[in-house]
């Protein structure tokens, strides 16, 4: 947006939990920044693009703190460009991408390469997450200083756990120098073994090798203890069990700097979805039991789960069109996240404000990045949503390269009408938009 450019979003319901605001109002954007929100925001506005948002919700741009953009190395699954398009289509104005690329993002070079691609795409903000250990091997720490200087906002070995407690302890201590969160993929590989499904009645019935809830909980417990020991900021990725939720509740009650996220699929689906051996439901951590799902929903409502993150994991057809045992783990989530979260609100599992907060302000705070709020001075990252529009999920129409979604054919309510990043419309009415907004 060039200097002096103005954008007026008129008459929408502005839902901004961080500002404590939920009101029908106008939102004025000047030079890529929120200038005013209110009934008279349009005052003094000439030469302004106007978006009529009557009947729509005006939200802070959604922020996803856990996506896999697959570039460099797995460009056949997704690239920064296609991932950014998917994000924009899903209403996300910022995503944080995990480092399990090839080569892994354990140094400035890969970080800069990702940021360059994001800049070329010129769509949404991309925050790279660097590795905890060199090469994600779980032995030596990666150079956090290098990573942070190049632009990383957090470190994680996601995809893999850091099995060695001693290594994790040192990494947590070192992270304090940079005040970045360490995102932990909690999975004790010895307990998980060669399991592919949640250890429970469904896996027993299907004869699938089991992954016990303990595999996650043992490591969540460890990270809580290490957080207490080191005083570092620990963020637990993709929480999936009720045991993990209990551990997190106790950690927060104690005041430890432990945060957590859950995915829309873990909040919506259970292991029953696996019946029929549909590999679109194969994910790590696996879909769990109904009791686990309910505990996750309650935890989200109470704030024990701070944020919702998709763990968007695109795969090629050849990776998924295999026997369940050997199919790749993961499903795409950017383009279905918002309506799935709204579904939780509609069925009463969570309040609307908590849900929006979990998709905007909380992720921004955890990553330490601007955004997630629409107060004057905040970057104009805005998502416009039609809360009433119903649509059927068709992965063939996704902007992501990945088609691996277990929600194929689902009828969902709530559609992103426009995604605005820094005052620039990057997605509107089903179309990715390049270029600058026009002035009348």
């Amino acid at each position, binding site marked *: 947006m060039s200097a002096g450019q103005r954008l007026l979003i008129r008459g929408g319901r502005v839902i901004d939990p961080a500002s404590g605001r939920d009101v029908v109002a106008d939102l004025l954007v000047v030079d890529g920044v929120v200038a005013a929100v209110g009934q008279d925001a349009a005052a003094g506005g000439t030469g302004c693009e106007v978006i009529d948002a009557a009947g729509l919700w005006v939200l802070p741009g959604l922020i996803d703190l856990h996506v896999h953009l697959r570039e460099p190395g797995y460009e056949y699954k997704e690239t920064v460009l296609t991932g950014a398009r998917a994000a924009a289509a899903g209403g996300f104005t910022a995503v944080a991408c995990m480092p399990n690329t090839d080569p892994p993002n354990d140094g400035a070079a890969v970080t800069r390469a990702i940021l360059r691609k994001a800049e070329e795409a010129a769509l949404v903000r991309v925050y790279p997450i660097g590795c905890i250990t060199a090469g994600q091997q779980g032995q030596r720490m990666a150079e956090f200083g290098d990573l942070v200087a190049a632009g990383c906002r957090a470190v994680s070995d996601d995809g893999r756990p850091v099995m060695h407690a001693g290594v994790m302890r040192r990494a947590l201590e070192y992270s304090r120098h940079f005040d970045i969160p360490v995102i932990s993929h909690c999975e004790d590989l010895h307990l998980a073994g060669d399991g592919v499904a949640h*250890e*429970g*009645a*469904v*896996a*027993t*019935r*299907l*004869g*699938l*090798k*089991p992954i016990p809830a303990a595999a996650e909980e043992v490591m969540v417990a460890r990270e809580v203890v290490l957080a207490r020991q080191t005083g570092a900021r620990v963020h637990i990725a993709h929480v999936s069990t009720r045991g993990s939720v209990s551990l997190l509740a106790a950690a927060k009650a104690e005041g430890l700097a432990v945060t957590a996220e859950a995915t829309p699929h873990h909040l919506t689906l259970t292991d029953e979805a696996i*019946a*029929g*051996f549909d590999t679109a439901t194969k994910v790590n951590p696996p879909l769990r039991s109904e009791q686990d799902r309910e505990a996750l929903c309650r935890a989200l409502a109470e704030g024990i789960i701070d944020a919702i993150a998709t763990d968007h994991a695109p795969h090629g057809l*050849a990776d998924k*069109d*295999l*026997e*369940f*045992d*050997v199919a790749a783990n993961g499903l795409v989530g950017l383009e279905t996240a918002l309506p799935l979260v709204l579904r939780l609100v509609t069925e009463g599992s969570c309040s609307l404000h908590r849900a929006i907060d979990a998709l905007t302000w909380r992720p921004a705070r955890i990553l330490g990045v601007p955004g997630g709020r629409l107060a004057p001075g905040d970057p104009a990252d805005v998502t416009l949503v039609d809360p009433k529009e119903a649509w059927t999920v068709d992965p063939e129409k996704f902007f992501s390269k990945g088609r691996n979604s277990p929600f194929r054919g689902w009828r969902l309510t709530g559609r992103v009408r426009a995604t605005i990043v820094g005052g620039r419309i990057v997605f509107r009415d089903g179309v990715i938009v390049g270029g600058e907004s026009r002035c009348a």
Partner: protein
Amino acid sequence: MTAWARKDLLGIEELEPEEILEILNTAGTMKEISTREIKKVPVLRGKTVVNLFFEASTRTRVSFEIAEKRLSADSVNVSASGSSVSKGETLLDTARNLEAMRPDIIVVRHGSPGTPHLLARRLACSVVNAGDGAHEHPTQALLDAFTIRERLGRIEGLTVGIFGDIAHSRVARSDIHALRKLGARVLVGGPPTMIPPGLEMLGARLVPRLEEMLPELDVLVVLRIQLERQGGTLFPSAREYATLFGLGRERLRLARPELLIMHPGPINRGLEIAPEVADGSSSLILDQVTNGVAVRMAVLYLLSGAHRGATVADTVRGAA
């Protein structure tokens, strides 16, 4: 007309009791053919049946092969080590290549659960599950049910026990489904490390100790302990298993004298079952093998006829 309308046999879980009975009754007819001088009927003449075995198995494959030949079908064996599968061809590619040669039925055994379902969804020909990982082994359960019914006249109201490595056993799962659907009471037991959660959801009652189970049983199915799978992790040694959990003469004294013993084979003599018990008068083990051919003939016959009527969607929906 037969009660069978499915294109595939993927498992017992999705079958109705009438369908199971249809197979058992047809198997009774087929059994007679094996007693003739000329053990062949022309009904599947000109049909091609491919035995696609990714897991080594002589007995099941031979049983299917004999069944196919007795129905005059052309039987082709494809084993994982002998085909491009060992060179890393995907399962679906292997199957599609085979399908291009127009088989009528593919009998598949694979180490991964859900493999037959994957094939059934994609291939136009009929698919028979000869064992998919720890999930199901439908023809085994059918021949077990046939054997029990042949000897005792019924299945309804009987108490049948299944003992051993339940967690890894596709035979256990299929047996539980079949016996429950036909009205039997099913007890399962084994060492704690081999009992998976949620068996009650399948309709079986957990009685972990063999000693407690034996007095209640009409029939006992002893499961094979697979040393090559467990190694040292699920139980410490073969010796300890045989001592604590094996079915020997001593333990057998706790059972009713009329107890019948079954085993899916191959037997580990002296491990899960003592030789004198396996060869004793209570043992139905060899009857199981004989009946296996008859049951498989019945399955092949019924699938050949059903092919026209059922759709792929019916089969998959039933599996879900």
